[in-house]
């Protein structure tokens, strides 16, 4: 079943065409990758999907629902979350607070002036342990290293129990040892919690290991798609990366 369906999306900034006629589908429960040279429109596509900016034309369906005109918080509440290329965390708050606020806040206006519930706190501890930040939980998130902040942001996204996670370069700036741990955890999340992943990645080793299906963007258009080994041997993809 298709969880996310992007149909011929166009997006341009002034005269610059960032995405032209881009289509992709993400089946439920799978890990799908997006690759492409710098400036090929990968992050723009993410921004379009999560409602960061309106799209010029095309359709985006999530769980069978048209979402291209919804705002970011509304889409997030439907169960689609994204992480950023540069870490976006709440730097003056502790790790625990970062996690707590990422859970679903009580919609009930009477309970909103209460602290977070015990269940939330248990989940915070469990997920912080999962990404290996439990011992740092009372530090300010801004004092963590870049790699740790990426892990924290990943754990924060898990607090929301999303159906799909859009990860924008999860391993960029993370040291090689941590990268292996991160891949394991991404896979674990996908298998055990059934969270669908859509991953932008520059690190070929990572994406070839992780994804079951890969899309390659170049100059704002969809260049090729297929299984990892098909993509690896596709002459067009190699040309795009080498700039021929």
């Amino acid at each position, binding site marked *: 079943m298709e969880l996310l369906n992007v149909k011929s999306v166009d997006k341009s900034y002034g005269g610059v065409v960032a995405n032209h006629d881009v289509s992709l589908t993400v089946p439920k429960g799978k890990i799908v990758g997006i690759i492409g040279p710098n400036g090929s429109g990968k992050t723009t596509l993410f921004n379009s999907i999560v409602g960061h900016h309106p799209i010029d034309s095309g359709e985006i369906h999530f769980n069978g629902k048209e979402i291209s005109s919804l705002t970011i*918080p509304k889409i*997030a509440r439907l169960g689609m979350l994204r992480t*950023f290329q540069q870490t976006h965390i*709440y730097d003056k708050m502790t790790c625990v607070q970062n996690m707590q*606020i990422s859970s679903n806040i009580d919609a009930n206006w009477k309970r*909103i002036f209460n602290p977070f519930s015990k269940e939330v706190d248990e989940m915070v501890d469990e997920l912080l342990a999962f990404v290996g930040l439990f*011992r740092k939980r009372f530090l*300010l998130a801004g*004092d963590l290293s870049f790699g740790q902040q990426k892990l924290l942001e990943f754990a924060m996204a898990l607090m929301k129990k999303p159906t799909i996670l859009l990860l924008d370069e999860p391993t960029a700036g993370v040291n090689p040892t941590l990268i292996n741990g991160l891949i394991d955890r991404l896979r674990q999340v996908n298998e055990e919690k059934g969270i669908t992943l859509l991953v932008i990645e520059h690190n070929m080793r990572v994406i070839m290991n992780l994804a079951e299906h890969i899309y390659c963007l170049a100059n704002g258009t969809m260049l090729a798609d297929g299984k990892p080994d098909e993509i690896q041997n596709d002459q067009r993809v190699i040309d795009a990366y080498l700039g021929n």
Partner: protein
Amino acid sequence: MITKDKQNTLIWLGLVISTIVPFLFPNHITLLTYIWVMIILALTWDMLGGQTGYTSFGNILFLGVGMYVCAVVQRDMFSSGLGRFERVSEVVVNLNVSEYFISLAVGTLSGAIVAVVLAVILGSGILGMRGHYFAICTLGLGHAAAEIASGIDYIGAGSGMVTPLYPSELLIGKEAFYYYAFLLVAVATFFLFRKIYQSQFGLALNAIRDNENKAESMGIHTTQYKIAGWSISAFFLAIAGAGIGNVIGFIDPVEIAFSGPTFGVWMIVMAILGGKGTIWGPVLGAVILYSAKETFWTYLLGWDKVALGLLILIVVVYFPKGILGYFKDRKQLSNSILSQKGEE
């Protein structure tokens, strides 16, 4: 680190002292009253300015609105309305004891409600703006309100209006009554705000301060939280305004009600001086700034504003995060050193 038990003991001790202080210094009750007023102003400003990171220069609007609405209710509730040729600024209403307090209570509450309604309406308009743009937008609020109030004859226009006389037959004097009233409101504000900052709501405000884009992408309706925070501030500011009008006994649109250069600036300076974004910072800042202001005025008359400016300058240069912010940073630093040692 002060433990929670110790902190509570300190609070109770402070409250006991505050309760008996008027008996020790009967000649300085009004001055002491103003300390509580300042604490309320600083605390309410900090809700948006400190905890949410949205600097507002327009909170004075709610103070003035509370003041005027309360005064109008006090004037008109039990009297037959204005005489046709009376000058509003000279109308002094005499009320008996029960009339005075009923109209004061109703007036204060209506002032607070009007302020909240205003905060919601204005907030949904301008709180969609981020950071500095919001600050610039609020810059004109107080001034515009003063201009508008100066043009409405019903509230005395530019000459202002007089609040009712305090009934003389009461045992407790006017000064003492307003001292305890403000003590009560300030303490209630403090405890309520402390509860809010420890709650989910408070954490959402902090999240907006640290990274509003992230908060939004995590599904938090940020504008609604900002409006709610501003409304809570407006509610308590308007209550304070209603009281100030009665303590001074006279309301003037430019000099008192919507007085940007005094109350409007003080509330910001006090919160920053004590440490914005903390619960005790505004309290500390209010006590220090107001005491300093009165001391300078008493002993350095003529140079008092220079001395006050110098004090603010010293704090901004050496304690840019305020007094409590300075200590908070040091504590956080030692925390992170400790955790690194534990790692080895």
